[in-house]
């Protein structure tokens, strides 16, 4: 036996064995019931595979057996962190199919509530992301702010999690008395509170070393994978449905789209933080400009029957582009309803971002992707 063969034999016998580790479904930082099967060499991830479906409820199939009005509440339960903006996307799709024009007051209220829900969703992301990286105080601070928004939602919708007030053709009811003051109060307080949280993180060297250069995704890769939302904008691409294809009254409002440069976790963090500020800006504008009048379109038929055909509508949910593809045969129930969940698509980037990095980065990257398993699994 040659020296080399001997060496190889010994090397094989004593080679490091890869550790196959189940991360999830019951894991503190997989944000629900995501299961990631990791192959580890020491602390380094050599391969990973996402296993989803633990929260699959067959929302799309259920929708095929419900009338159009009955479908709407199901969307509050896909991305339950941002129920408001998800509900909005569905009602808009049906309105688009049926050509219903929503009165301006309803449009402004819708935008105000959706942007509030964007802030609340981002706050939850900030809290859990910081918690994953180890800063537990931010988690509770973020939840304190989120609580303020949930109080407004509770007054408005009667629910804190599965908020549902949008009806095809407008709103179910008008804003309650004092809504505008409460929102304004929140908007007044919010910037200082946000600055406090930023102060804890932006100048913290450990936070920077845990996020800068971690989970990098290039602009090309981000487009190839179909990433949307902050995951796309963090890589430097200015793409926001609110600007690109304005829906509701967004074209009448002033706001900027923040975007990053490096496509790393820190840039996505900065983008989302700025998005919260911009969302607040939008909320203030909608409250200031809030028109009077009805909140339901005058001519909405009792029985909703969109004309036969295919319809696609998408809007900018807090997680990214939420799209709904609707096939109607002119009856009271859709033939097919397909949801394009931003979280599901964004999750594809996990492997690209994590392989070759350390185990702790997986946790940080899952946090930065901002996934909600209710939406991934539907």
């Amino acid at each position, binding site marked *: 036996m040659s020296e080399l063969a001997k060496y190889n034999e010994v090397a094989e016998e*004593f080679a*490091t064995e890869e*550790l*196959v580790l189940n*991360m*999830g*479904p*019951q894991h503190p930082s997989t944000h629900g019931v995501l*299961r990631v099967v990791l192959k580890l060499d*020491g602390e380094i991830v050599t391969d990973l595979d996402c296993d989803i479906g633990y929260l699959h409820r067959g929302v799309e199939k259920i929708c095929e057996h419900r009338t159009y009005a009955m479908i709407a509440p199901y969307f509050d339960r896909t991305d339950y962190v941002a129920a408001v903006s998800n509900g909005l996307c569905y009602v808009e799709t049906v309105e688009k199919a049926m050509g219903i024009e929503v009165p301006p007051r309803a449009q402004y209220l819708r935008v105000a509530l959706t942007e509030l829900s964007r802030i609340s969703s981002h706050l939850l992301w900030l809290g859990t992301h910081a918690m994953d990286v180890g800063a537990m105080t931010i988690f509770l601070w973020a939840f304190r702010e989120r609580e303020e928004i949930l109080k407004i939602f509770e007054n408005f919708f009667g629910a804190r999690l599965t908020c549902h007030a949008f009806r095809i053709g407008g709103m179910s009811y008008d804003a309650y008395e004092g809504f505008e003051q409460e929102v304004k109060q929140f908007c007044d307080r919010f910037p200082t509170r946000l600055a406090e949280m930023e102060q804890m993180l932006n100048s913290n060297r450990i936070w920077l070393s845990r996020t800068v250069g971690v989970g990098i995704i290039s602009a090309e890769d981000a487009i190839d994978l179909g990433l949307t939302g902050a995951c796309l904008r963090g890589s430097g691409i200015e793409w926001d449905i609110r600007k690109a294809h304005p829906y509701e009254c967004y074209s009448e409002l002033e706001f900027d789209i923040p975007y990053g440069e490096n496509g790393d976790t820190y840039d996505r963090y900065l983008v989302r933080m700025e998005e919260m500020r911009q969302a607040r800006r939008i909320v203030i504008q909608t409250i200031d400009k809030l028109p009077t009048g009805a909140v339901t379109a005058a001519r909405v038929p009792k029985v909703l029957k969109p004309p036969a055909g295919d319809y696609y509508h998408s809007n900018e949910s807090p997680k990214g582009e939420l799209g709904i593809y609707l096939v109607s045969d002119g009856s009271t129930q859709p033939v097919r309803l397909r949801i394009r969940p931003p979280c599901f698509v964004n999750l594809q980037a996990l492997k690209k971002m994590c392989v070759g990095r350390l185990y702790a980065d997986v946790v940080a990257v899952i946090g930065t992707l901002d996934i909600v398993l209710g939406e991934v699994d539907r």
Partner: protein
Amino acid sequence: MDAPIINYIPILIMFGLALAVATGMVLSSSLFGQHVPSRQKLMPYECGKDPVGSARERFSVKFYMIALLFILFDIEAIFFVPWAVVFRKLSQDYSKLFVFGEMLIFIAILLVGYIYVWRKGILDWNK
């Protein structure tokens, strides 16, 4: 105190006490706690899935490297201690330069090994 060896006896008593407390704790929980074992409960935790493979596979060689380095450097670091204890006495009795220079030579030797390890990339964990 004149008889230093006697002074170790309290440490021994403390050891006995701590051991008694620790044993007591281990026993007490198995005595008072309820016991309703089930297969799932007695399985190692792996996030709700049945474990894939064993947890006692051979793990990365880097951990062994750190252990080796530790033994080397810790023994060298321990040599500082006797030197430090007699530092003031020696520097007054003999020459200051000798005591100081002696230590510098020792650190220089230590640094050679340290730089070698650094250059070899053993201290890099990303690779």
